[in-house]
């Protein structure tokens, strides 16, 4: 049996909106194993981004626990969570969120400068297929290229888990597929655990595990015995 890296236990998150309490996350529980490629699938407003943010130490739950390597995240203070994000987690966002005033290489270095065990930057940039664009600024790159830089930035920190929030959401089909391929390659090459959240159901075909969500609840967890190559996905 593979080793559990992240354990989510009865996680809930409520938001107050005026007089109404909105349940963004309702009693979610699941486990993530080391090296797994997980897709969290659900429509807009299903609570998947909230879940990802709590898993990544960017937000705190109203109740429930998250364990990272048996260490309880939900009781950590801000400093502890910062250290967790710094050394254990890598983020990839839908809108890339690169620093506009830094080149591709510098965006990656920005992350590696502060972490404990980074990977060779050249190697990572080559892995995401951006060797020729390494000294370009974000404004000089296409959306797909920017997202590759974002992935390189997350991967270069050598995180144990890569959390990707709709990584293909802002991209066209072909570029989206190429990004998924990069993620899969990274998963294989660097053996990171990858969690992708998406509303795009065909992407689930490439996952080892699919967690389906609706209205803040986990409605189904599917173990995929035969994940397909990203190139074969169509939408």
């Amino acid at each position, binding site marked *: 049996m593979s080793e559990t890296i992240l354990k989510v236990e009865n996680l809930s998150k409520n938001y107050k909106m005026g007089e109404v309490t909105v349940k963004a996350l309702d009693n979610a529980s699941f486990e993530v194993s080391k090296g797994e490629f997980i897709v969290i699938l659900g429509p807009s407003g299903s609570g998947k*981004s909230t879940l990802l*943010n709590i898993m*990544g130490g*960017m*937000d705190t739950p109203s109740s429930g626990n998250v364990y990272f390597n048996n260490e309880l995240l939900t009781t950590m203070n*801000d*400093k502890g969570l*910062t*250290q*967790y*994000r*710094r*050394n254990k*987690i890598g*983020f990839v*966002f839908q*809108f*890339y*969120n*690169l*620093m*506009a*005033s*830094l080149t591709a290489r*510098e*965006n990656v*270095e*920005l*992350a590696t*400068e*502060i*972490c404990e065990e980074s990977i060779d930057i050249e190697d990572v940039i080559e892995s995401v297929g951006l060797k020729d664009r390494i000294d370009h600024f*974000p*404004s000089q790159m296409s959306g797909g290229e*920017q997202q590759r830089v974002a992935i390189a*930035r997350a991967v270069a*920190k050598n995180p144990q888990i890569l959390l990707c*929030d709709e990584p293909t959401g802002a991209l066209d089909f072909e570029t989206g597929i190429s990004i998924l391929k990069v993620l899969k390659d990274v998963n294989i090459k660097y053996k990171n655990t990858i969690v992708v959240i998406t509303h795009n159901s065909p992407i689930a075909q490439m996952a080892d595990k699919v967690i389906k969500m609706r209205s803040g609840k986990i409605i189904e967890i599917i173990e995929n015995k035969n994940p397909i190559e990203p190139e074969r996905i169509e939408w």
Partner: protein
Amino acid sequence: MKKLDKRLFRMIKNTKGQYFAVLSIIITGIFVFTAVSNSALNLKDSLNDYYKKTNFADIFVSAMGLPEKIESSLIGQADIKEAEARLVFDTSFITEEDDEKVNVRVVSINKNENKINKLFIKSGKRELTEKDIIIIEQFALARNIHVGEQIKIQINGKQYKFNVSGIASSSEYAYIMENEQTLLPDPENFGIVYIEDNYLRQIYGSKGNYNEILIKINNENNLVQTKDFLEDALDKYGVKRVIKKDEQLSHSMLSQEIEGLEMMSQSVPYVFLIFAGIMLSSMLSRIVKKDRTSIGILKALGYQSSEIISHYLKYAASVGIVGGLLGSIIGSALSGAMTNYYLVFFNIPTLTIKVYYNRIVVSVILSCIFCIISGYWGVKGITKINPSESMKPESPKKGKRIFIENIKFVWNNVTFSWKMVLRSIFREKKKFAFIGAAVAITCGMMIMTIWMIDVMDAMFNRQYTEFMKMQYNISFSGFQNENIKKEVAKYINPKDMEGRIELPFEIENGRNSKIVNIIGLDKNTEFYGFQDMKGNSLKVPEDGILISSNLANNLHAKVGDEVLIKNFIPNKDDRYVKVRGIIKQSLGINGYMNIDYLNDKLLDREIINGIYLNSDDDVQEKLKDIKNISSIQSQADMRGAFEEFTTITAISMGFMVMFSGLLGFVIVYSMTLMSINERTLEFSSLRVMGFSKKEIFYMLIRENMIMSFIGIIIGIPLGLWLVDYMGKSFTTDVYTMNEPVRTNSIVVSIILTIVFLSLAQFMTYAKIHKLDFMQALKNRIS
């Protein structure tokens, strides 16, 4: 280099307009501080050094006649360490130009070395023989006199020829004023000469007597007691004045200048630094707001809030370090020029211009700390940014109605673009209040500066056209009877002529007293235009005294008070007289009495010691041979000296106008730039709706125009307050700055303020023109 630091440099590059704007204010603040305070320090240190080297007197006593042995009788008493008697009088310097009347003050000195107020020999030698003379440097330079040449001086009705054996400076005459009413040095027409003591007393006919004594005491804390002692001890010799060091004319002018510089260095820079601080804080808080997503990313990457805060604080610190360094370097360099500028007026041979390296370091550290504190105020919100929230688009600001909207009649008649302007102002009250405050300060400082240019002119004109209306003021070497007027009339054709008495008396009102010259005038004098503080004309009263407003302040006297006039003339009594009026007088500090009343009450005889005269004749030439005339002061000469002085002050005032304008310019420019950067999306939407770039620019102009208008309205009373404050601070025994601000000056100040603001506004148009509004609508790179 760390990547965040790289980002910092690029951030500075991207916001260079605002960065340089705030930098320029810091540089100006630190520059003014360094230049002015270094100049003050240079002057102060050099002056103290000069006084020490020349053994500057602690007390100056003038009397009718002091016996030869007076020095030894005083030393050892009342803490007196040293005493040195001398003979001092003003007389004519004989020139080759017939229409020129030049006066010199002749001072007797020991043939080898005097003990107190030693001369600082610049060329030639100090030792004197009977036929030698030492000339003060300012006079020698102005009249191009060199060592080895011969000069002629009229002494006791006879012309004497002397060999110039030395050119010297004197700590007592670092600033040469003939008297309190001349205000400005006129080295071409008035100088100081030094002649060997025994010989001078012999030819002057003072029967071996002196008329001044210089005193040096052991402990400066005993100054008042020693002064009181001297007044009593020398009473029998007809003490005229006992002056402490701080009241000595040259020293008091220098001290006032140093105090003025110190006051300026402790006020003006802080105005600039406070505005720079607010601007920096506001700039950084807006940058942080704009960088909200980037900050969220940094937090998501594992950066701590403190690391991100220090990243932004480096921006503030860089402004502080660069501003502090450049400001203090420019200031130090210019303080040399500024100190040299004082040499036009002050002769301090020991003047050394030092670069105070420790001050540069202190300025940089202070400016850096100041910027970091201001910056922290702007970036402290970083700790509150939640990384997950920051990724989401910011929720639109709460739109709420502004209070004008409740006044339906007004609001319904306002056009759409004006509605946007008004809402924008009311929703960003702090920002617009800041712009308003900057405009108010700019306008206020302009008013003060323009007033300062005006006030010198007004003071001079008021004194010499409205207050003193004579063309010539002739002084005699002793008391004369009225017959001398007839003698004068033989040489010239006077249009008007009046005799006068001008003598020093001590006026006492309760515990306050002051030694001033009281002038006795014809009761229907045509030569003075007295006005009370409300501007009503006053006549010379039959009895009692009129006193100048600065004297009234000194004595705490008001109209109707009885003041005691203490007589320095031996065997004459002190008398109480009533204050009949307090008058406006720009230059000098005096009392005025009816000449008959003065003679009757204090002198007991019909005498005069000078005349006022109006004549179209060449008075100076025609009267030069009258032996009893000690000096002829002409208004035309005074005007010449004044005009030279105003040219020099105009340059420094020009700098002040520039600094004041810079403040308004920079703040309006940078705040508008910030506004443009923040509202790109809003402006883009307007462009989509069909607004032209010009219309958007006009909208911005209107916002600033309203605040500038309010700023100017507030700036006017602020300026008047500054004028009042400056007037009170600068009013001394020598001049009284109570000139009102002219409407024209206010108008000029407002125009100058508007010019600087318009310049800033037009520079921002370039920015609006360059903005790619369409790109802003689709751009989403953090």
